């Protein structure tokens, strides 16, 4: 009510412009600098089917079209997905510490990927065996966790979090075991995958993740009113006319889908789903109708920036992006914790 919608549209507009600008800057930067106008021209040329006279080298075109753009788009989508899934899970569990990782989903993805790398599992998926196995691992995990936590047809939040942590520990042990039996090369691959990277992003990756991630984001945003009501407790939500169990299930599935798909192309990137919703809550607002879209856009900006840093700080080699997000995210998280220490129950 009041003038809030206008303010929200303004905020989202600013974030969208920021996201586009960040993407453009990220495509500019690298061993070969490319002028932003040139980027726009190359894309105009590509998209219009050659209406503009090309005045650039093939190398420049390849760098923009085949190397940097898919990488930027992929990191943007993953950042959006991880952030909105984190925001939704924190809302669902009414716990600021909840995020896809705590529910064991990323460990599930890691087991799937490690099985693929070390034992060659999932050969039927061909080149996609690692992401496909990661996806299967993450989705299986969330359903196992969900069903362990289920009692009398309901899923109490405390049980769900505990089940997630317990299953996560178990899966972690499985990954450790796979590392021990891995050969030298496959061990290196596993370790690199676990740290996460966009170094080898292709348009095929983008095509694979874009639909599920956008679908998941859409579903989560669609449920923003239910998430708001759930903040008052499940019983109140029931009294207001919400089919709480159904809504919870849909929220879980959508978050699992988004996270699993994100993790399956980028490896494990921590802190994004935790930090971004926190910052958005502090700066922009609590209501999920603004929190969810603002988290998605901010998460996109954040991960594109992190990936740009990952590319340039130790040029010509790369830093795994998981290290960058942890280096930025962990101190910020500690800062948040200390600031909120007096009132841990601030939720």
């Amino acid at each position, binding site marked *: *009510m*009041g003038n809030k919608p206008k303010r929200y549209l303004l905020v989202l507009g600013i974030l969208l412009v920021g996201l586009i600008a960040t993407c453009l800057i990220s495509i500019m930067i690298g061993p070969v600098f490319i002028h932003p106008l040139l980027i726009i021209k190359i894309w105009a040329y590509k998209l219009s089917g050659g209406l503009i006279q090309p005045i650039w080298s093939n190398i420049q075109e390849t760098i923009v079209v085949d190397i940097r753009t898919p990488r930027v788009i992929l990191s943007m989508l993953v950042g959006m997905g991880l952030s909105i899934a984190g925001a939704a899970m924190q809302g669902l569990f*009414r716990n600021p510490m909840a995020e896809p990782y705590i529910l064991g989903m990323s460990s599930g993805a890691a087991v799937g990927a490690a099985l693929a790398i070390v034992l060659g599992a999932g050969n039927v998926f061909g080149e996609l065996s690692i992401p496909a196995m990661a996806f299967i691992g993450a989705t299986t995990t969330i359903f196992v966790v969900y069903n362990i936590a289920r009692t009398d047809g309901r899923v109490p939040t405390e049980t769900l979090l505990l089940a997630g942590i317990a299953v996560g520990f178990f899966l972690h042990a499985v990954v450790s075991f796979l590392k021990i039996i891995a050969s030298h090369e496959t061990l290196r691959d596993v370790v690199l995958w676990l740290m996460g990277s966009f170094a080898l992003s292709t348009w095929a990756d983008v095509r694979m993740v874009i639909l599920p991630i956008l679908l998941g984001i859409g579903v989560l945003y*669609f449920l*923003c*009113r239910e998430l*708001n*009501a759930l*903040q*008052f*407790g499940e*019983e*109140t939500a*029931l*009294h*207001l*006319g*919400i*089919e*709480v169990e159904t809504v919870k299930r849909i929220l879980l599935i959508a978050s699992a889908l988004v996270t699993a798909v994100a993790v399956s192309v980028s490896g494990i990137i921590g802190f994004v789903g935790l930090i971004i919703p926190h910052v958005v809550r502090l700066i922009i*607002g*609590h*209501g999920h*109708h603004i929190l969810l879209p603002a988290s998605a856009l901010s998460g996109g900006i954040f991960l594109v920036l992190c990936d740009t840093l990952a590319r340039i700080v130790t040029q010509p080699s790369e830093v795994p992006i998981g290290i960058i997000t942890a280096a930025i995210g962990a101190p910020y998280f500690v800062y948040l914790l200390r600031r909120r220490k007096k009132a841990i129950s*601030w*939720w």
Partner: protein
Amino acid sequence: MLQVKNISASYQQRPVLEGISFQVEDGEFLGIIGPNGAGKTTLLKIMTGVKSPLTGEVMLDGKKMSSLCRKEIAMIMAVVPQSSFIPPLFTVEDVVLMGRYPHQKSRFVTTEEDIKAVEEAMQKTNTSNFRQRPVNELSGGERQEVIIARALAQEPKILLLDEPTASLDIKHQMRILGLVRTLVKENGITAIMVIHDLNLAARFCDRLILLHNQKIYAQGVIKEVLTSQNLKEAYEVETMVEYNDFIGALQVVVK
């Protein structure tokens, strides 16, 4: 009209309610009393469909509650729980607007009708003065009024309240029960309230149900239920019940 038919309930095989049957007419204010652990909250949870009974049925306007979806129930019935958890930063207006959930057809649009209902609910509960304040920063009494406003925004036919006055001062106790009484008498709402304070129950309710030993120990108009004998049996205390001219109602004095 709400009918409770032969309800039994248990927690982990331990029976809490047995063969509870009663009926509440439109425009009636029913009080549910009984000692701690008698099963009042459990009964309320069954009446709101939050807990399913072991046997029996709750009927809303002649329809089985178990056959209605949450939205249909919420359009008929609103609940003021005993203590609601209030997350930070939701303003009074936000919270009251949530009561419109079951009526809203579009998820992203607030209609004129919604705004009208919200304004009216805030007016009735005296909460429009602090509409922009975060609810978690209000006092217990003010919060309770906001939660009642949210329930009114649902435009329910039946209002269920679980110890709505438990943490309120005498002024707010009178104000909130007076408000419920007005809603019942002027707007034809049916109210069902769990309450410990027998004197307040005697003053505001039309009829009482006394729960004891998993059963309805007594039910009827105030003077039929609030007798020294019933109270001694259910609460194990000696009482004197007499008509008080000053308040114009029965009054229970505990020895």
